[in-house]
């Protein structure tokens, strides 16, 4: 079945523009393409967000080599801040007749993206006082705007999720390159998609840049010198910085998206690498691919340069060597050579379940790791079934072994994601190669929470998986 009629129906139903309606000449079949969105930060105006996409994202996508890509903005706007700036400027105008709106417009939106010294230097004498006043307003506004939980749910999130669902149905996998507050929206969309379709969730990835959130569904990049995020960290829990971008005159806040992707600074390579890794682990929606292929060759020429690894077949009977051996109550799989992760050439893997939920209910699920003939269970049990408070799982594999882990939600729950670790970014059936020690965490959410938002699980994996 061609995806275009479905998309048009959805577009008509929600009354918004769809990718299919905006596109032309694709025959309605966009199989094996990536829909790459920029999730803008606080109070970036809609056309400036669009300009960021046209001018910045294509080169990032090309460097990350993620295949056929179509671009867009997942637009987020926060009321109030620009209005505050205008009001402040009006007050300044009353104080100083030299002030004019041209001047304000020239600096205010650059200030919103970060304190761009190159524009500040264009100020006339006395302008620095206005800059200082505006910067105070803006800093306070950014902090206030970003001071939200990572799982808030509002009509903006609902609209974006509707658009993403249309993308999934049309055969796109979706990646949001989110900056600053855009991460909160992307995270909220992730949670909303998880609550409705674990299949769609498998094709949704986030490249988090300057992340003000407490959690990241994939990896993230936040600079040690990001003044805005550091300011946030002083008032709320924020993911730790993990990227060293030197301070520079083009952005004294160290927070601008352009600072993170500046080709002359080390942040760009990190963002490109993150985009590449997210894309590599992200499968295309399988149902739409099948539908388009059956349409008779419309996918020709649309095959991406880098395909995600196909998800292995999910089979409960193959998911746990322990279960096959003794019913799952204990783990006595015949060891290969890794009965101790401290043995040279053996890699330690740990596993955990993290159950989210709302104030009344807690999600639950199962986690199993296929030990096959190579792995060894260091601590029983080595799989969990239908639990929301689960013991810790500890296994070991020879270096280079291919490992499959399966997360299965219990009734009423959905698989949300894998936490950080070897399975991050993959679907419920995860395949990875044992290279370095890692802790995989299967995170589940309620399918129908009584009242969104529901809280996401807290990380329970130790930072050092080899620690006792």
């Amino acid at each position, binding site marked *: 079945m061609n995806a275009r009629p479905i998309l048009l129906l959805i577009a008509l139903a929600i*009354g*918004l*523009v769809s*990718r299919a309606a*905006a*596109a*032309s000449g694709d025959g309605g079949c966009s199989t094996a393409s990536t829909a790459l969105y920029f999730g803008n930060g606080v109070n970036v*105006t*809609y*056309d400036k*967000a*669009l*300009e960021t*996409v*046209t*001018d910045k994202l*294509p080169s990032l996508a090309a460097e990350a080599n993620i295949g056929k890509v*179509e*671009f*867009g*903005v*997942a*637009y*987020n*706007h*926060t*009321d109030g801040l*620009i*209005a505050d700036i*205008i009001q402040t400027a*009006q007050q300044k105008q009353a104080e100083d007749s*030299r002030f*004019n*709106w*041209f*001047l*304000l*417009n*020239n600096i205010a939106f650059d200030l919103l993206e970060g*304190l761009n*010294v190159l524009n*500040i*230097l*264009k*100020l*006339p*004498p006395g*302008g*620095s006082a206005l*800059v*200082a006043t505006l910067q105070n307003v803006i800093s306070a506004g950014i902090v206030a705007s970003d001071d939200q939980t990572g799982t808030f749910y*509002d*009509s*903006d999130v*609902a*609209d*974006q999720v509707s*658009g993403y669902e249309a993308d999934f149905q049309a055969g796109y996998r979706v990646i949001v390159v989110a900056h600053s507050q855009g991460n909160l929206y992307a995270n909220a969309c992730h949670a909303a998609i998880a609550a409705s379709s674990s299949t769609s969730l498998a094709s949704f990835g986030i490249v988090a840049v300057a992340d003000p959130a407490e959690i990241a569904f994939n990896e993230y990049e936040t600079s040690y010198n990001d003044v805005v995020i550091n300011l946030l960290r002083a008032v709320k829990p924020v993911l730790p910085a993990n990227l060293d971008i030197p301070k520079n005159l083009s952005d*004294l*806040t160290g927070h601008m998206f352009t600072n993170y992707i500046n080709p002359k600074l080390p942040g760009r390579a990190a963002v490109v690498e993150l985009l590449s890794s997210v894309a590599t682990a992200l499968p295309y929606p399988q149902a739409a691919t099948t539908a388009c292929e059956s349409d008779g060759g419309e996918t020709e020429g649309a095959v991406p340069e880098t395909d995600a690894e196909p998800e292995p077949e999910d089979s409960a009977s193959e998911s746990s060597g322990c279960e096959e051996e003794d019913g799952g109550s204990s783990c006595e799989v015949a060891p290969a050579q890794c009965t101790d992760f401290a043995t040279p050439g053996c890699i330690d893997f740990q596993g955990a379940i993290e159950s989210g939920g709302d104030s009344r209910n807690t999600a639950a699920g199962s986690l199993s790791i296929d030990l096959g003939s190579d792995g060894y269970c260091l601590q029983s049990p080595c799989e969990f079934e239908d639990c929301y408070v689960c013991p810790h799982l500890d296994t070991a594999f020879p270096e280079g072994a291919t490992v499959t882990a399966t997360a299965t939600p219990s009734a009423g729950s959905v698989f949300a994601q894998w936490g950080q670790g070897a399975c991050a970014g993959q679907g419920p059936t995860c395949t990875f190669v044992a290279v370095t020690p890692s802790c995989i965490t299967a995170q589940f959410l309620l399918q129908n929470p009584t009242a969104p938002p529901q809280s996401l699980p807290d990380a329970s994996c130790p930072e050092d998986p080899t620690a006792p």
Partner: protein
Amino acid sequence: LTAIVLAVVAAAIGCTSRSSSGGTSTAALDGGVLADPVQGSEGDTTLLGTDGNNNGIRDDLEAYIATLESDPEKVTALDSFARESTAMMVLGGTTGTTKVAASAQAQRVASTVDCLHDLYVSNLSTKQTIVQDVRNALYNNALRLGAYNHASTLVSGTLLYTGQGCDPAITGVDQ
């Protein structure tokens, strides 16, 4: 501290000039204050301004754009950006504008942004400077800036698409 640093830096370099890359801006200093070639030139501070030729672009803005760029095709694209942005601003300043209407108009602005990117692909920094100058002139009073801001608010949560090149029906540019 940042403000102090900036003030020192600004004072150290004299802070008396403004030059856009490529020499495309006509803004100049007048007694230490930036002189806006658009602001006040028509004495009309309404949202729409004066549009004598009824092409959807304020007359003073249209004349200003002609000073920013000499290539006729690029002028056409810049005009389309100004026209569609003006329409979007008007929606933002109009009570009762729906998200559907604003999103559809924002998508038209997206087409002009696409087109400008394609025309200036070999010199994006020049394009960015010129487009920012056009924005400055577009939203050159509190009413217009507020309407622009509200237009952005209206399309919050919307997915907007790019990469469609120059749509001649919107941009007037046939590439």
